[in-house]
């Protein structure tokens, strides 16, 4: 494997073919292959089930064509024994296989596909290069139907009564993407029971899809049949009770998630408890701990979940796993040493050019000797060499010798893309005692030989151009410093709710002194007013335990009645002023976790505030915590969902309320089985295994009535009694209810985050929740380094998710705090003070808070760059009206490259 340079010669010649698993078997791959283009490491593998050499001892072509001798037919599976202190289970899920449901005819009808197949069909790298085609004439579909809950929310045919959590959202996404892919007339229809777009910014996307014409039909289609033209026929009942038969060109089955049976067996054999759904059992207050000590879980093995939640849990598991390992931190690491860097200041450029053949990838098209000969004619070029593979290890060794022998002080590699290969060459430069920024790459493969494979002469000419441009730039390059900055190995957590306390403990348990700031007089936040999690764990007890743990941890300093007044600094070196009960206190810290929470909104409708029988969730919980006997004498109660959520003014879903109402309704039924309990809802969003609570509630006789935004329930007072009128959409008539109690699922709204956002230079989204660096892949990071996000300050979420995110934030902050110094990248912006007018355009343009205007001692306004925060994106350079701000190696160098390109 070490020898493979992923040139792809083997796969070109390989005669063996089989279905490509990555494209869901929709097209073919070779017997020697890379599993998928993004594979890490990018190495070819042999499929023993297809390889002729391994099956019949014939062929052997790949070994013959491999330029590096990387093929080893004798390679065997190895059993490795590792000694570890913690284990993280992240084995994931398997999409539900609908071929066992004969009513949907997935196995038989070519135009019935699964959602995961449809993902591949939409992909430019997929079997049809992103074209959506129907069988048999490859025509673009005009009508596609998505069928939700295939393999989920069905205890009858597949046994999966849970909700798979992600399918509603991905179906909306696929429908929107399909609209983009198909030209002309097209209708996307999604058939669903409840639309579960409960995630951050999901509801807005759902609304946008509706606006753009995606049709949402509240009906489950049971059977698909096919006509002689392979069109698909579905019969379903409309909301008003009519049976409708409709014809579609393609049907996408929104398949749910399952733990594969073999994986479940392995996990069980490891002594880890799984529930009846084959998901790992966890506790809400330790959401990534399994039943076996030292074993942690994250992702869909615990429960179906989407990417951001899985990413949060992954970091949370790293936090827990790291806690027990923290005494051993750094004991198994090795530090690489390099020779001292040669000072090239004042030296004339002596450029070495290495032209790569990349096997036949470049050499088969571009005349490499010609390019090398041309390179020798260019100014400052002191050495030129052709290589079969410039990236191979022996070439690296040789390059090092050549640099030393010829006194080279800049290197140009004309080969492939710096994205994958620049770090390798930078290492070689460091080994040779050169600053690692003294290399420039000319991409004569991806941007030349591959795209111009039919025009070898023009390709050769272009390769020469690219080399000339690179050499011109290289001659201007200089050694860039990579300053190291000391890290204050202390954390600051803002917000003393469940999330904040968990983050503080996460840091302290890993040995980092942490300051916890809470604006109220007591720790605990919203959790102080909640009774139970949906799994039934008592919240008050667990929060008290958490508070005690925080209070007793010697590494945690708690300030209550405290707020953040001011802050300055950057990753590793913050200085923050707190106002503690009116007195200022300044602390130094290396990382910040924002966990300022959110709050329940006070409703403005449904007689709230006018009648004491109308309560919010938190008020209900508090009243029940005191004494729940008042429920025993009641005849009827009504829960109203989406009070203030999912409305134009607040277009997001508050995520926690459906489960909370269902859980409370169950409690009512437990205390008083004769009571009539109604839940008036728009979509029941008991995602994941919370669905089982919904089922239990229906089982116990709780009545669910759906209403829509145009027909909101009407709450009135009739004499001394409350009267609720709601329109039932199935019956098409009004129902009159006379409850003794009305519980409003009021929206969760953010705290006033503006001041904090301003101080730390953080962004808020349209709903005024903090905005993370990346909605999917970096859900606990901010764009600004060293600052992290946890809990409801990010978005409404239940306690188990707040805890997971809080642990994740601690884990992410640990990455910063565990180092004594941080090395800053060299390719950063700098401001030429002589040209700066202090206008501040750069500060506005910077997404990372890295550049700011300050007043110099002489009173002049000047922008300056905090190198540690700068990503080298050059947004400041673009914004700067005078050319004062610019990024090293991307300033005059770029202009020179353009001029050189035009010379020829």
């Amino acid at each position, binding site marked *: 494997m070490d020898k493979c340079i992923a040139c792809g010669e083997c796969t070109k010649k390989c005669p063996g073919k089989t279905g490509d698993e990555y494209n869901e078997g929709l097209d073919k791959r070779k017997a020697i292959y890379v599993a998928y283009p993004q594979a890490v490491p990018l190495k070819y593998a042999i499929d023993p089930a297809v390889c002729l050499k391994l099956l019949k001892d014939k062929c052997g072509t790949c070994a013959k064509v491999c330029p590096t001798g990387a093929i080893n037919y004798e390679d065997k599976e190895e059993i490795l024994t590792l000694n570890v202190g913690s284990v993280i289970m992240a084995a994931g899920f398997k999409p539900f296989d609908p071929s066992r449901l004969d009513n949907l005819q997935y196995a038989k009808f070519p135009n019935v596909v699964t959602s995961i197949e449809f993902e591949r069909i939409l992909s430019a790298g997929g079997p049809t290069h992103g074209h959506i085609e129907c069988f048999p004439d490859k025509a673009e579909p005009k009508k596609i139907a998505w069928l939700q809950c295939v393999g989920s929310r069905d205890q009858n045919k597949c046994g999966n009564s849970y909700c798979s959590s992600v399918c509603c959202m991905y179906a909306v996404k696929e429908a929107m993407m399909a609209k983009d892919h198909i030209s002309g007339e097209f209708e996307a229809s999604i058939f669903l029971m409840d639309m579960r777009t409960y995630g951050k910014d999901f509801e807005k996307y759902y609304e946008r899809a509706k606006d753009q014409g995606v049709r949402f039909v509240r009906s489950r289609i049971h059977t698909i049949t096919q006509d002689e033209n392979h069109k698909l026929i579905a019969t379903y009942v409309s909301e008003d009770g009519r049976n409708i038969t409709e014809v579609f060109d393609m049907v996408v089955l929104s398949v749910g998630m399952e733990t594969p049976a073999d994986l479940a067996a392995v996990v069980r054999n490891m002594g880890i408890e799984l529930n009846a759904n084959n998901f790992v059992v966890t506790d809400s207050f330790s959401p990534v701990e399994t039943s076996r000590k030292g074993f942690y879980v994250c992702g869909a093995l615990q429960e179906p979940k989407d990417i951001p939640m899985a990413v949060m849990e992954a970091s949370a598991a790293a936090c827990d796993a790291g806690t027990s390992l923290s005494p051993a931190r750094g004991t198994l690491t090795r530090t690489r040493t390099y020779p001292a860097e040669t000072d090239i200041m004042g030296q004339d450029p002596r450029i070495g050019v290495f032209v790569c053949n990349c096997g036949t990838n470049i050499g088969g098209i571009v005349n490499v000797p010609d390019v090398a000969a041309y390179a020798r004619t260019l100014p400052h070029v002191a050495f030129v060499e052709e290589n079969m593979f410039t990236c191979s290890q022996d070439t690296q060794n040789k390059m090092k010798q050549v640099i030393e022998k010829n006194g080279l002080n800049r290197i140009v590699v004309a080969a492939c893309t710096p994205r994958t290969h620049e770090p390798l060459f930078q290492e070689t430069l460091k080994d040779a005692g050169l600053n690692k920024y003294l290399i420039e790459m000319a991409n004569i493969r991806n941007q030349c030989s591959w795209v111009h494979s039919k025009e070898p002469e023009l390709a050769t000419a272009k390769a020469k151009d690219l080399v000339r441009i690179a050499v011109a730039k290289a001659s201007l390059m200089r050694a860039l410093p990579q300053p190291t900055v000391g890290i204050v190995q202390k954390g600051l957590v803002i917000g003393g709710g469940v999330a904040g306390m968990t983050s503080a403990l996460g840091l302290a348990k890993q040995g980092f002194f942490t300051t916890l700031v809470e604006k109220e007089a007591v720790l605990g936040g919203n959790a102080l007013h909640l009774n139970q999690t949906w799994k039934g764990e008592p919240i008050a007890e667990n929060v008290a335990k958490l508070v005690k743990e925080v209070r007793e941890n010697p590494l945690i300093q708690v300030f209550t009645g405290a707020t953040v007044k001011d802050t300055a600094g950057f990753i590793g070196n913050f200085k923050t002023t707190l106002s503690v009960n009116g007195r200022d206190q300044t602390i130094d810290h290396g990382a910040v976790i924002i966990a300022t929470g959110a709050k329940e909104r006070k409703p403005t409708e449904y007689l709230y505030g006018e009648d004491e029988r109308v309560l919010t969730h938190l008020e209900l919980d508090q009243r029940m915590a005191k004494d729940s006997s008042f429920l025993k004498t009641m005849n009827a109660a009504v829960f109203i969902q989406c009070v203030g959520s999912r409305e134009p003014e607040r277009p997001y879903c508050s995520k926690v309320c459906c489960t909370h109402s269902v859980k409370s309704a169950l409690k009512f039924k437990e205390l008083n089985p004769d009571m009539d309990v109604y839940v008036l809802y728009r979509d029941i969003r008991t995602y994941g295994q919370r669905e089982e609570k919904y089922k239990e509630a*229906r089982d116990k006789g709780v009545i669910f009535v759906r209403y829509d935004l145009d027909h909101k329930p009407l709450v009135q007072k009739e004499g001394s009694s409350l009267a609720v009128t709601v329109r*039932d959409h199935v019956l098409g008539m009004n129902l009159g209810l006379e409850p003794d109690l009305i519980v409003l699922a009021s929206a969760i709204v953010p705290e006033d985050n503006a001041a904090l956002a301003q101080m730390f230079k953080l962004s808020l989204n349209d709903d005024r929740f903090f905005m993370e660096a990346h909605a999917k892949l970096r859900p606990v990071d901010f764009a600004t380094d060293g600052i992290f996000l946890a809990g409801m300050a990010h978005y409404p979420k239940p306690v188990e998710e707040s805890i997971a995110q809080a642990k994740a934030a601690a884990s992410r902050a640990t990455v910063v705090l565990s180092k004594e110094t941080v090395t800053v990248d060299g390719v950063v912006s700098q401001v030429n003070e002589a040209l700066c007018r202090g206008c501040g355009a750069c500060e506005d343009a910077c997404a990372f808070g890295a550049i700011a205007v300050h007043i110099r001692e002489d009173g002049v306004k000047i922008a300056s760059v905090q190198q540690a925060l700068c990503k080298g994106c050059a947004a400041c350079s673009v914004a700067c009206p005078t050319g004062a701000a610019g990024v090293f190696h991307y300033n005059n160098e770029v202009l020179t490259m353009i001029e050189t390109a035009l010379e020829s």
Partner: protein
Amino acid sequence: MQLSQQQIDYCMECGVCTGSCPVAMTLEDFSPRRMIKRTLTEPEGDILQSKDIWACLSCSRCSDRCPVEIDFPEFIRSYRYKARQADNLPKLSHHGMFHTITSIQAKGVKQNRIEWAKKAGRIADKGDIFYFTGCIAYYDAAFQYLDLNMIESAENNLRLLNRIGIQPVVSNDECCCGHDAFWCGDEDTFLTLARKNIQTIVAAGAKTVVFGCPEGYSMFREAYTQKLGPLPFEIIHITEFLAREIPKAGIAFKNGGNTTVTFQDPCRLGRRSGIYEAPRELIALVPGTQLAEMEHNRENAVCCGTTAWMECSTCSKVMQMQRLKEAEAVGATAIITACPKCRIHLTCARKNTDHHVEILDLVSYLAAHME
């Protein structure tokens, strides 16, 4: 009122029931989903006066498909019981003749049910195996006008049993299994009949009861055990019994002459008892016979149009015509079925039409090709 019936409270409003219902396809406003929702909010409401509760065929397509396993047919049945008390009665077919026959049997009448059997083969008074003939002898008399020689299928069942070496008990004391009474909400009649039948079978010393009719089999399997507890004998439907025994007995069949046939899955045998493969295995025993599946088969099969001799309507006819067309669409010259009622209803539907597909009894088809 406090509702405790899980089957109705479970509804998630997905609409699969109504979208699957063959009655709802034709009968506008008939909606299982709406009936469930309505009783949810008004348990004793106007459903008890509604005609709709008699329209359900209890074909179980809805309950088979419901993601939360709501047993809609059972829901309907329990309301039919209440509707009867409220004087809401179904419209009976054939002038109520079959219901009258049932109630006479419940009151106790001396029947001659074995005359045909004495001619057709060998039977016993007592023994291990009891052949439950069902109402076939009455149908034989009633449906002469359709040129259906219904008793033939009982004769052939007996012939095949004899050929395997079994001399079953066939009893004059057997009575109606109570299927129609049960599904009409007449639970008292059903219970009387059920007790009588169990008594008769036990008295004959039988260890196994072989049923010629899917309705009797499904009643013993579901309703008898639910209402009266575990049965003191084994039960098996003739198709499963023959599929198991014929290969052992080495009976050979002559070539069916390159005929294409299809199979109508009776609701009671298929969805309600889960028997789909045995009848198909039996058809496959006849060389030359090709089995072509109709578009809707097995779990997705469509009912023959009426249940329990009531509410025969346009709706029934639409379903029956659909079945005939589906059979012809796959090139079948005959629809084979294992239920006497399917045979009667489809034959009736075919009368005075251009459809020529034959409607045949499965065991009779086997017997006709027996070497």
